[in-house]
């Protein structure tokens, strides 16, 4: 059983056949300027295809669009086809969306990450739709012998008003397929959009809501075995000895195999391999530093005062500015490691055969899964196929391929098709965490409360560069120094939704709130003054759009009634990340002497909103996620071993804890940018700044629930 339409070449031929002699348009995702080209069905069936992706129109009018990017809950499988369908001018209810497999010949950037899919594909998708539409118009013009300029389209129908004639796209598809694809096709004006900007439901709603097999963990292949992998007990440990005799004797167990520092139990069912794994007797020995959270705190303190940090940005003369300052504000902020905790734990299906490898499962980067598999086995990447399933979340965890390789290693050792599953405990203790980071901010104020100097040092554990040195307020402060240290640790880290900015934004926007207070200025006006400065007399390079920063700030302040409300305490936060701009205002009310987070306003500028329903939920979900992890997320270590392993000790936010959220978009018609990440970073500070207003207690470390300041107000 294959759980998804398998869109490799064999299935492409099926798709071609389903088009019933209609139009098959290849559209090029590689280059915005590339010319789409038409292929006839015979050519498609023969596999003579030089294109990167395809939209087909069947004679019954059904539009099939291949969506090449992985769907992880960001809604790309709905948003991409909306863009094509808009320019194509079709009836949305007749659009069928098919997930494409990995195909690096046809597609570029088959990645779910960095909020980058929409900005990457916006022009390509519109061109694809518009080109097909124009060919259908030309086909009608030829048939009716009227000028193409007199022909209009709507909902998959071509019309000529003068002679009162109409034909459906399906009826014209065969004619259109014979035409040469035009170049330089004019795209629609944003004001003429019929689909883009509407609320359109998730294309997978029905299979999701009826429990159909969609996810990697649902995949089943006749004769496949189940596997679980025992990873080392702690970061910095390696296997000394393995006694698998008891495990091997347990019911349903086919084999126990060892690779690198892992032991895999392979058997007939998930439960059997899970129980047998518990019967393994593995001894470990030290292989590196066995770090504890207390070690990290000591390392942070040491590096915070060490010379020779890596300078990330230097504007003006920061030491001179601090020397002449009337007032200096200095604070430190710290966050812990975080696991990603997607609801679907890591899993993958692998079948390593003599002639090649078949991979099926949830991955944000199918190309990496393929290439790392090829490298591991010493084979050519073209011997590896990757079919992408819908993902039960990823949040960056599935950008790594370690869990894919678990499946590949096991299948290779047992010479059988294998579905490898991590338990929640494996998932939470399996590394690739959001790195722990500490920041120190310093601001120099002159006698008028202007910020004349700004220093930021970031120290991270396997965080690389934990600063985003060109983000605001860089460009708005004449004298600025941003530097960093990285401590190398056996604890593995990786991108976690809105990498680095997920905590940096909290720290920075909380600190700017502190500076505004110290300067005796309104926090919103303080930001606006800085932005005005960045616009009029920028310090160094400004790599964000100042006007868009100002616009979301003003929109949030207007909608929230900033500074005009009685009985609520407001906190402001503003952040630009992953190409989108988001300002948030948190509202806290005091109930019986305790602060309650009542509401968060969000003003977002992601350019054109493709799908109102999807976009709003990305923002609301990002805020809930940002709030939950700021409040509770805490992964700690003792001698290299994670101290939290499941949701009983690692808390995620629940439904009864969410504040009201109201979302507003800036309507500016600018080319769209992504929304999978940008709403999360500002949330922590919107809440913390409002809590400060309400209680005079400043939260500087996450999770909040572990902070003395927080405990004192709750």
């Amino acid at each position, binding site marked *: 059983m294959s759980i998804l339409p398998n869109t490799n070449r064999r299935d492409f031929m099926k798709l071609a056949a389903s088009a019933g002699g209609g139009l098959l348009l290849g559209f090029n995702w590689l280059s915005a300027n590339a010319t789409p080209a038409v292929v006839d069905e015979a050519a498609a069936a023969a596999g003579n295809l030089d294109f990167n992706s395809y939209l087909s129109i069947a004679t019954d009018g059904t539009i099939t669009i291949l969506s090449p990017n992985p769907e*992880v*809950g*960001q*809604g790309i499988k709905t948003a991409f086809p909306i863009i094509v369908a808009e320019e194509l001018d079709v009836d949305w209810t007749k659009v069928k969306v098919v997930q494409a497999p990995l195909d690096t010949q046809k597609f570029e950037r088959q990645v779910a990450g960095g909020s980058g899919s929409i900005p990457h594909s916006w022009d390509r998708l519109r061109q694809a739709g518009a080109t097909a539409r124009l060919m259908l118009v030309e086909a009608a013009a030829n048939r009716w012998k009227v000028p193409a300029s007199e022909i209009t389209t709507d909902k998959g129908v071509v019309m000529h008003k003068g002679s009162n004639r109409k034909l459906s796209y399906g009826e014209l598809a065969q004619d259109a397929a014979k035409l040469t694809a035009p170049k330089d096709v004019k795209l629609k004006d944003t004001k003429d959009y019929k689909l883009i900007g509407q*609320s359109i*439901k*998730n294309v*997978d*709603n029905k299979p*999701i*809501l*009826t*429990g*159909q*097999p*969609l*996810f990697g*963990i*649902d995949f*089943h292949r006749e004769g496949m075995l*189940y596997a679980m992998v025992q990873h080392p007990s702690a970061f910095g440990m390696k296997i000394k000895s393995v006694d698998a005799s008891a495990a091997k004797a347990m*019911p349903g167990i086919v084999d126990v195999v060892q690779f690198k520092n892992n032991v895999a139990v392979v058997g007939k*069912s*998930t*439960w*059997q391999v899970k*129980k047998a794994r518990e019967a393994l007797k593995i001894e470990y020995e030290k292989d590196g530093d066995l770090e504890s959270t207390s070690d990290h705190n000591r390392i942070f303190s040491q590096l915070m005062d060490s010379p020779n940090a890596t300078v990330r940005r230097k504007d003006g003369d920061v030491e001179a500015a601090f020397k002449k300052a009337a007032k200096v504000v200095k604070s430190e902020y710290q966050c812990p490691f975080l696991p990603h*905790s*997607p*609801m*679907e*734990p890591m899993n993958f299906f692998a079948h390593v055969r003599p002639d090649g490898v078949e991979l099926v499962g949830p991955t944000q980067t199918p190309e990496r899964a393929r290439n790392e598999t090829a490298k591991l086995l010493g084979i050519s990447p073209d011997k590896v196929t990757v079919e992408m399933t*819908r*993902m*039960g*979340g990823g*949040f960056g965890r599935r950008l790594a391929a370690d869990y894919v390789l678990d499946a590949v290693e096991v299948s290779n050792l047992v010479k059988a098709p294998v579905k490898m599953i991590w*338990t*929640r405990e494996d998932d939470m203790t399996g590394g690739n965490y959001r790195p722990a980071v500490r920041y120190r901010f310093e601001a120099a104020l002159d006698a008028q409360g202007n910020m004349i100097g700004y220093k930021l040092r970031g120290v991270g554990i396997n965080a690389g560069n934990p600063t985003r040195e060109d983000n605001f307020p860089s460009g708005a402060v004449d004298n600025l120094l941003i530097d960093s240290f990285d401590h190398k640790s056996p604890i593995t880290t990786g991108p976690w939704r809105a990498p680095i900015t997920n905590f940096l934004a909290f720290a920075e926007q909380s600190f700017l709130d502190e500076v505004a207070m110290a300067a005796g200025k309104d926090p919103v006006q303080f930001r606006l003054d800085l932005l005005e400065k960045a616009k009029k007399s920028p310090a160094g390079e400004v790599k964000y759009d100042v006007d868009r920063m100002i616009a979301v700030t003003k929109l949030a302040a207007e909608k929230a009634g900033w500074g005009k409300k009685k009985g609520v305490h407001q906190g402001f936060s503003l952040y630009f990340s992953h190409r989108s701009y988001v300002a948030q205002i948190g509202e806290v009310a005091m109930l019986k002497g305790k602060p309650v987070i009542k509401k968060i306003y969000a003003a977002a500028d992601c350019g054109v909103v493709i799908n109102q*329903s*999807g976009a709003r*939920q*990305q923002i*609301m*979900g*990002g*805020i*809930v*996620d940002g709030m*939950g992890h700021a409040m509770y997320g805490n992964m700690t270590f003792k001698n290299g071993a994670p101290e939290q392993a*499941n*949701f*009983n000790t690692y808390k*995620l*936010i*629940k*439904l*009864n*804890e*969410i504040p009201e959220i109201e979302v507003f978009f800036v309507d500016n018609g600018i080319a769209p940018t992504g929304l999978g990440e940008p709403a999360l970073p500002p949330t922590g500070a919107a809440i913390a700044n409002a809590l400060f207003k309400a209680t005079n207690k400043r939260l500087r470390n996450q999770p909040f629930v572990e902070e003395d300041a927080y405990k004192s107000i709750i």
Partner: protein
Amino acid sequence: MALYKLQINGRSYQADVEPDTPLLWVLRDNLGLVGTKYGCGIAQCGACTVHINGEATRSCVMPVSAIGTSKVVTIEGLSAEGTHPVQQAWDEVDVAQCGYCQAGQIMTAAAFLKKNPKPNNDEIDAAMSGNICRCGTYHRIREAVKVASTKPAK
């Protein structure tokens, strides 16, 4: 190993498994009913929620040997075509992001509304706060439960 006869979604199934095998894994591995999801294995997240004699139950900690003749309903059996009022409401409100937790959310909501067809906001919050959604679709879950409560019961 022992042979268990199970009443699921109005049909009879047989599974030859160890007595301590959780219902979740019998559904998923032995019977091919994979709509019920694994999330934590310790009854903390609600992704595995099914109905046992109408009660919302965490199937990940329910040994198959304890089911007996109880009637089990999974997401696949809630309705044939997704027409249960809760499923319809989930579609109308467009709740799902990644969608992985939603079967458990829907089963929790359906059992809750059967007992309390016209709940107030606090009751909805209390009923739906045992199910985790990492995407943060809680506002829409809450709204969808309200929408479902306005539909004719099924």
